[in-house]
């Protein structure tokens, strides 16, 4: 026993001496490792400098150079304007391309590539300015528009946004391959005169011209590039205020002022350096704080941080409406009006916006038409205020009982709420689940799906309710108004009513502004009376901006964010 203890003591002390002896080479190894790591960095640095000589200095704003640095969320997926459908590409295209008309500073429509235009109920005529040039210096002519629109409509192009061109005579027939392309109602009788025959009277045709699908394409360049058109900086020819100078995929884009742009004298920025591409909002805020980027959006999480730092916080509307869409297919319980009414009398959208979402800029949903849409003289919602529901749990419960009788069920089964997988969708669906459980004792099963799968389930009708959203395509109430037409494929809940279809037909083909707003009002009323959807909120934007950067436009339509007319003021 004693012997053993002695032995272990001895072993311990020998271990200690060994550790102390071995520690010396170990420390040496540590030092060597650190030196090695730095040597490696140094070598790599030299190596990378050999490979690419150009190093970019990113500064949020630079006054003498009139240049700014910004971050975007994702690489623009498609810069071929006849195929492009998404916002990221739309933002870039809005800076480097221009259509016949463009947005003015106050958000209305003004002359762009066309110096004047005339729209009647059967034709639209555009006169293109003499000084309009492509970025290679060649003139922009009417045929460039004819080519672009024709390309978008050809069946083999398979453009998802071709439907926006159905306003052109025979546009739909050409797109569906029924008529040949030369039957299209487009002609260029003079090099700088474009005549568009319309399929039906389109009161908002001028407003469509700011949409990327309507931008021009130079035929020679397009055919020369074929599949590569829009794939890289050198694979595009530009008609807008800026050109893409360099494009390192996934990393950065450098936009430079277009020397051939007709209105170049009114463009003040020389460079827009898109230095970072990341979806991470906190990372972007860190870049902002570090003086690397000039503007970034805020989320609920980092709003406090921004306020503490006393940055200039701005808010604006993003134009999109989010709503709870019901499945109106006859097999679903949600096709019952009394049931939908019960929910309408229960769900408090003010609570959702002010207590759950808690972000400035957001507005509680009241109507299918967001507040920013224009009526005849004033805003549509000022001329025709949205009908408001007074929340009342007694009425709600009565409606629910009524629904039960009509449907002939004694107990409500679990209802499926289809949602997306974003953090926002999580909070909102859980809130909704809680509200319906507490107030109506309804059990909601949340079906969380990634974007594409949610769309697939929406289209096939595998839901009772879905949290859906809609962003505007053009500046007319119809962009929201025709959503629930029985023929509209985006009407994924398959709502169908004669009354609604009639109102939409008037809004589509009438050219009398008064008739149209009246039609919009009845659409608004039907949506409310029939509880077709429950508008949840209008999305807002909250962002911080560098104090020296002025005249940046956040729009509900077109390129958002729009830096075309922005400028940098001198440092204070």
């Amino acid at each position, binding site marked *: 026993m004693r012997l053993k203890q002695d032995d272990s003591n001895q072993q311990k002390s020998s271990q200690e001496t060994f550790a102390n002896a071995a520690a010396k080479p170990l420390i040496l190894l540590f030092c060597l490792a650190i030196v090695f790591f730095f040597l490696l960095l140094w070598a790599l640095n030299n190596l990378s400098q050999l490979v690419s000589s150009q190093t970019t200095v990113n500064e949020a704003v630079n006054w003498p150079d009139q240049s700014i640095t910004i971050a975007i969320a994702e690489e623009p997926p498609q810069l071929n304007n006849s195929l492009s459908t998404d916002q990221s590409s739309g933002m870039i295209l809005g800076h480097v391309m221009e259509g016949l008309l463009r947005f003015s500073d106050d958000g209305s429509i003004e002359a762009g590539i066309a110096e004047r235009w005339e729209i009647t109920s059967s034709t639209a005529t555009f006169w293109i300015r003499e000084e309009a040039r492509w970025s290679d210096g060649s003139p922009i002519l009417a045929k460039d528009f004819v080519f672009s629109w024709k390309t978008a409509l050809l069946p083999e192009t398979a453009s998802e946004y071709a439907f926006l061109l159905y306003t052109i005579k025979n546009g739909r027939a050409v797109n569906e391959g029924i008529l040949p392309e030369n039957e299209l109602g487009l002609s260029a009788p003079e090099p700088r005169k474009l005549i568009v025959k319309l399929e039906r009277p389109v009161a908002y045709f001028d407003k469509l011209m700011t949409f990327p699908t309507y931008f021009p394409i130079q035929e020679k360049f397009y055919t020369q590039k074929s599949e590569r058109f829009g794939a890289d900086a050198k694979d595009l020819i530009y008609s807008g205020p800026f050109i893409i100078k360099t494009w390192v995929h996934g*990393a950065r884009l450098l936009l430079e002022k277009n020397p051939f742009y007709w209105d170049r004298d009114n463009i003040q920025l020389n460079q827009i350096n898109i230095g970072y591409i*990341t979806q991470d909002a906190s990372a972007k805020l*860190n870049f902002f704080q570090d003086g690397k980027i000039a503007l970034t959006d805020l989320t609920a999480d980092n709003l406090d941080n921004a306020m503490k730092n006393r940055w200039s916080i701005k808010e604006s509307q993003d134009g999109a409406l989010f709503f709870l869409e019901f499945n109106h297919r006859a097999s679903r319980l949600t096709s019952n009006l009394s049931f939908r009414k019960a929910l309408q009398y229960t769900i408090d959208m003010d609570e959702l916006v002010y207590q759950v979402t808690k972000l400035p800029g957001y507005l509680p949903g009241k109507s299918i038409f967001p507040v920013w849409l224009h009526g005849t003289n004033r805003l549509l919602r000022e001329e025709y205020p949205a009908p408001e529901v007074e929340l009342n749990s007694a009425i709600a419960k009565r409606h629910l009982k009524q629904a039960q009788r009509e449907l002939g069920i004694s107990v409500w089964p679990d209802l499926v709420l289809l949602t997306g997988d974003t953090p926002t969708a999580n909070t909102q669906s859980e809130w909704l689940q809680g509200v319906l459980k507490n107030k109506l004792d309804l059990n909601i099963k949340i079906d969380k799906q990634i974007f594409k799968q949610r769309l697939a389930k929406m289209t096939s009708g595998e839901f009772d309710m879905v949290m859906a959203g809609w962003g505007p395509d053009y500046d007319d109430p119809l962009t929201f108004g025709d959503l629930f037409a029985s023929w509209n494929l985006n009407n994924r809940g398959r709502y169908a009513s004669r009354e609604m279809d009639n109102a939409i037909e008037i809004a589509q083909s009438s050219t009398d502004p008064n008739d149209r707003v009246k039609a919009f009002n009845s659409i608004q009323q039907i949506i409310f009376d029939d509880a077709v959807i429950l508008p949840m909120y209008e999305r807002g934007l909250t962002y911080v901006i560098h104090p020296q950067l002025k005249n940046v436009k956040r729009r509900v339509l077109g390129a958002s964010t729009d830096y075309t007319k922005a400028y940098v003021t001198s440092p204070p």
Partner: protein
Amino acid sequence: MWTYTLKRILQGVITVWFIATATFFGMHAVPGDPLSGEKAVSEKVRANLEIKYGLNKPLEEQYLIYLKNLLLGDFGISYTQENRSVNDIIKEHFPISASLGILSLIFASISGALWGALTALYRNKYPDVVIMFMVILCISIPSFVFAAISQLSLVNLNSLFNWSILPVGGWGTVWHMVVPSIVLGLSTMAYLTRLMRSSMLEIVNSDFIRTAFAKGIPPQRIFLRHQLRNAVLPLVTVLGPSIAAITTGGFVVEMIFAIPGLGRYFVQAVQQLDYTVIMGTTVFYGAFLVFMVIIVDLIYGLIDPRLRIDS
């Protein structure tokens, strides 16, 4: 040696084929497809799109076409980045992920081995306890937390000194790589530290060390030649899979530091159901992983003569 290598390569090819097949059918079994967008399109347009991408053909035929293209090394065109080929995407973005991954692996393996040796040397003493505590932290805290914290501290450091010590994010110079590669390597480093520690402890008690002591070999030499060299062997085993894990697992770190690596395409493709990119990146990473494991197996022989495969 050669037959062994050939056998391993053949096994690798079968593995990659299996990965490709499983991914292909799994991906097509998921509801939805890359062509469905936010705005619904008419049946005509939809049919046109399907023809354009060859999705109108029966699945088995698509699979055969895919395998044929795979053999030719053509991954096809991305659905979301519509005019870029998947080959281009991999060619442009993999080197970025790889350079970041290799740097972080160098950092992780060297420091992991050294920390592990240190803890074994001072087993149950002060350095051991402290380091092992840190190791547990590094293993259990996910990398995006470290990424966010390190970025925030960098911002604060930069504003404190009013001078950009290291860039907060982005890509372009070596200095952009320092913080992300360390963050990326932390969990691997911690894992390797534990591995190294246990492997060292095992060797310390083995017979040949006792013999070495008995022969009177100086302790420094025993430590370096007999203990360290033998203990490092298990580390090499996990290095292969670690390379793949680091180069693929960098998605979150890449996003936070705005690094244009392949990780974001790998993850976003799945969210977007971008068939060609899913297939391309999965098969590529699969092949890469298999390749790394083979390489590591062959490297064994160089490190440990006992494991050298005879012909």
